[in-house]
């Protein structure tokens, strides 16, 4: 039939949009292709020219694989008047380590997150409001320093062990190495599962539960047979993100001094390399593997959930949620298990402030309240320059983000042509694509071949790629805010405009944008904050030319390069405290604007 022919499709396409909108769209797609699609393809295909049997053979040897495993699972050492128990787990090599950590963390965060969400969604207990408020604190970005605080709590000579001793237990506990990473990441990431699950539970129509209750289901049975299955998309979305975040997390392995995991391998090899030719094939392959896992997950989501689900998070619940009085056992669980867990989970944010405002923190308690750390960072040229870089990069990226976000959200929401779902998929995909894979792709693509030595070569000018990568990676936050706004604007409002003679672009700018301006603003604020706190690309590309590096690279640098933590943790914490402040302002503003709690997922 005629309507299936290419000509008819094209005619339909240009019937639905006009030239300026087509241009905006073309711009958006071009950006995604140049900064996301082709670099990712390069990660896959690039190293293949250098791959040899020898390289592949290498993956079966240390450090990629350690068999038999190295080290001890648990060490108990007798310290005279007490016994020190050190849980550390054995080193199985880079690849198994990463997979084991990510799987374990996913499992643990899922248990904790679902448990916490169920409590908040279904039980009415004193302190519930506070509980809800505190549970989002762990999602505040505290690049790198959060993990150092957890190391301070659980690690070598940590607060936990010292507290046990001061209680006179005769035992002291330390969690180090992989065990420490697992615990730290679990505490850092469970709120992601929690928020997604909670959003899902709150969206379950209470009448569905009432129906089941009517048929005799109650209590836990009701919850597990009706509520939880209906909330499964949220649970799955949350745990999937955790798996990906864990696989590319740099902070925890850095703090717990674990070198044999994928992200650390990638970053340290890039930082060591001064030329793309020197980059080892192995790490490029690792970045590809990371990407492969992410893409597999993306396919799962695309089949079983929609990416849109990520975009439609916490709305505060449209219904009157059903809440119950907890049983005595439930009370015990809430106050003796959930509450302490929550308190430990916000310790990174508390710890950041503690470090930032103290002179030293060696024992359990810090000593010497001071503002020196802040004074120090403003006197350090490197920090000031990096802060300025970050603000500038983020602001420029934001211009791109707003254009791409408005264009793609409008297109996906309003223009029904074939391929729209593909576009939707493309523009939302940065939410789940590891930043390290993108960084590696950009590095491989733009520093070799004909682009070597040009303006865009990251070895001479990382700035450009950092900005563009920020724009791509952090645009979904704006896109989904705009999309949510568009859903509130009835299509007839636009049609009325076109009917009176306004072109689609004119309607978009004159009617739609004014109506959803606040959504655009709110989304842009969130995107801005996430640009400021972006880690993967900042560290990898920033390392190539420190005077162009953004602030997150400097934090990383302070915590690693030879300074060896120590006093520099305090300085790094002061920088992070500033970032924390910016975030809190931005989040309060967006919540005020959007009138609902905005989920911030992309840790």
């Amino acid at each position, binding site marked *: 039939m005629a309507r299936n022919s290419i000509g008819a499709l094209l005619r339909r396409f240009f019937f639905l949009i006009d030239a300026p909108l087509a241009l905006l769209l073309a711009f958006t797609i071009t950006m995604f292709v140049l900064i996301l699609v082709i670099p990712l393809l390069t990660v896959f295909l690039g190293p293949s020219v250098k791959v040899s049997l020898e390289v592949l053979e290498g993956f079966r040897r240390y450090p990629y694989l350690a068999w038999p495993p190295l080290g001890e699972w648990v060490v108990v050492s007798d310290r005279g008047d007490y016994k020190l128990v050190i849980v550390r787990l054995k080193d199985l090599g880079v690849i198994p380590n990463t997979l084991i950590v990510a799987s374990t963390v996913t499992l643990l965060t899922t248990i904790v997150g679902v448990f916490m969400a169920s409590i908040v969604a279904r039980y009415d207990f004193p302190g519930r409001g506070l509980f809800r408020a505190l549970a989002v604190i762990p999602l505040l970005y505290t690049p790198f320093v959060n993990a150092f605080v957890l190391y301070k709590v659980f690690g070598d000579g940590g607060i936990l062990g010292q507290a046990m001793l001061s209680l006179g237990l005769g035992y002291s506990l330390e969690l180090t190495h992989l065990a420490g990473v697992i615990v730290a990441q679990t505490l850092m990431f469970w709120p992601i599962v929690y928020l997604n699950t909670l959003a899902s539970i709150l969206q379950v129509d209470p009448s569905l539960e009432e129906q089941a209750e009517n048929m005799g289901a109650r209590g836990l049975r009701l919850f597990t047979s009706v509520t939880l299955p209906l909330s499964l998309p949220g649970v799955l979305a949350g745990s999937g993100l955790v798996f990906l975040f864990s696989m590319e997390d740099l902070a925890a392995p850095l703090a717990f001094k674990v070198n044999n995991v994928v992200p650390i391998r990638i970053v340290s090899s890039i930082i060591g390399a001064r030329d793309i030719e020197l980059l080892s094939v192995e790490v490029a392959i690792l970045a590809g593997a990371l990407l492969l896992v992410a893409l597999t997950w993306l396919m799962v989501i695309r089949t079983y959930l929609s990416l849109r689900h990520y975009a439609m998070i916490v709305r505060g619940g449209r219904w009157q949620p059903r809440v119950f009085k907890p049983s005595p056992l439930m009370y015990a669980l809430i106050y003796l298990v959930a509450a302490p867990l929550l308190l430990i989970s916000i310790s990174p944010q508390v710890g950041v402030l503690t470090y930032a405002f103290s002179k030293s923190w060696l024992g359990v308690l810090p000593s010497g309240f001071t503002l020196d750390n802040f004074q120090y960072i403003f006197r350090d040229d490197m920090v000031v320059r990096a802060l300025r870089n970050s603000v500038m990069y983020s602001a420029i990226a934001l211009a791109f983000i707003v254009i791409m976000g408005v264009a793609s959200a409008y297109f996906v929401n309003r223009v029904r042509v074939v391929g729209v779902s593909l576009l939707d998929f493309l523009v939302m995909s940065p939410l789940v694509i590891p930043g390290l894979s993108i960084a590696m792709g950009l590095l491989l693509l733009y520093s070799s071949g004909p682009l070597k030595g040009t303006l865009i070569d990251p070895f001479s000018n990382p700035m450009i790629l950092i900005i563009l990568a920020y724009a791509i990676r952090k645009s979904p936050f704006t896109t989904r805010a705009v999309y949510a706004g568009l859903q509130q604007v009835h299509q007839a409002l636009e*049609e009325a405009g076109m009917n009176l*003679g306004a*072109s689609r672009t004119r309607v978009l700018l004159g009617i739609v944008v004014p109506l959803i301006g606040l959504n655009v603003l709110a989304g842009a604020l969130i995107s801005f904050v996430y640009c400021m706190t972006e880690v993967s690309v900042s560290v990898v590309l920033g390392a190539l030319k420190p005077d162009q590096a953004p602030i997150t690279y400097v934090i990383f640098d302070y915590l690693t390069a030879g300074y060896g933590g120590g006093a520099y943790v305090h300085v790094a914490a002061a920088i992070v405290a500033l970032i924390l402040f910016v975030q809190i302002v931005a989040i309060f503003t967006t919540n005020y604007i959007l009138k609902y709690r905005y989920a911030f997922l992309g840790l």
Partner: protein
Amino acid sequence: MDEVVLENVDKAFGKVKALDRVSIKVVRGELFTILGPSGCGKTTTLRVIAGFEIPDSGRVYIDGVDVTFKKPYERSTAMVFQNYALWPHMSVFDNISYGLKLRGYSEAEIKRRVGWALELLDLKGLEKRYPLQLSGGQQQRVALARALVVEPKVLLLDEPLSNLDARLRLRVREEIVSLQKKLGITTIYVTHDQEEAMSISDRIAVMDRGRVVQVGTPWEVYNKPVNYFVATFMGRSNTLNGIVLERVSEELYEVDVKGLKLYGVAPGGGGLDRGLNVAVVIRPESLRRAGEDEKVNIIEGFVRRVSLLGYTLQVRVDLGNGASVTAYLPPKESVEAGERVRLYASPEEVKLYPAGEVEEEMQA
């Protein structure tokens, strides 16, 4: 002169065939109504004319020009949306002047024209208000003003009364008609309310499941419904099951309704074969008390229930063969439940449609 022409327009949404070879011709200056039950494709037809939907096949002409693939803003139609679609962030004045600004009129000219529209629709003094500060009726008039002020070739109204309360509906309906006559603007009016359609239209197109089944004046559509759907959709009707006995003349058939013999006509065109099962449709108002001397088309039975509706007396009559009919008699008539009555319907008022059409309707 035809202002709007649709030629064999098809439009499907996935598997749903919203429009099935729709062809209509709207004459310049007339008030043309598209009537049909919810989901029959009325809105889609309007949207195809306005250019919000592109037909899968077929053509659309406005004022002799093929606009099938023209964009909405190149067509010079003005639509009043079911929910009015007033821009909440713009004042009444800004809403109404939007189209004028796009056309590049001078400030003074815009003022003059908006003033004209405000006057016309009795909106004076409200120009600084925002849509949310207006009543439903006022919002509707703003929407009308916004559409009319650009002097469109065609005015499209999608169920314009559906968001008004019953009291306002009658008044606004009259206002729309008198405005339309005053301006002489070609108007396509969509409604699912047959009474509304009857009262305002120059011509009506009745739609059923994406197809236009009949186009005609209200009189034609009401009195000569071409199929069972139209016959039963327009007003109330009694449907009895019958079998064709014979064709008495070119026009007239004799049917058997479970022993009752009736003469009737087949407005659908085409002959009815002897022995064919037919639906016998009689409107309640076509039935009256039979005179002593009348011998044919007599429907006799016991009165089951009588209700005085004011303008008419509604009488439910059991025919004794399992069937029953409702009749509207003059309110002064004295009839009591249990009484035996003889009713008469003239053969032109007894309409016969093949039973197949009925089944088709039932399945839909």
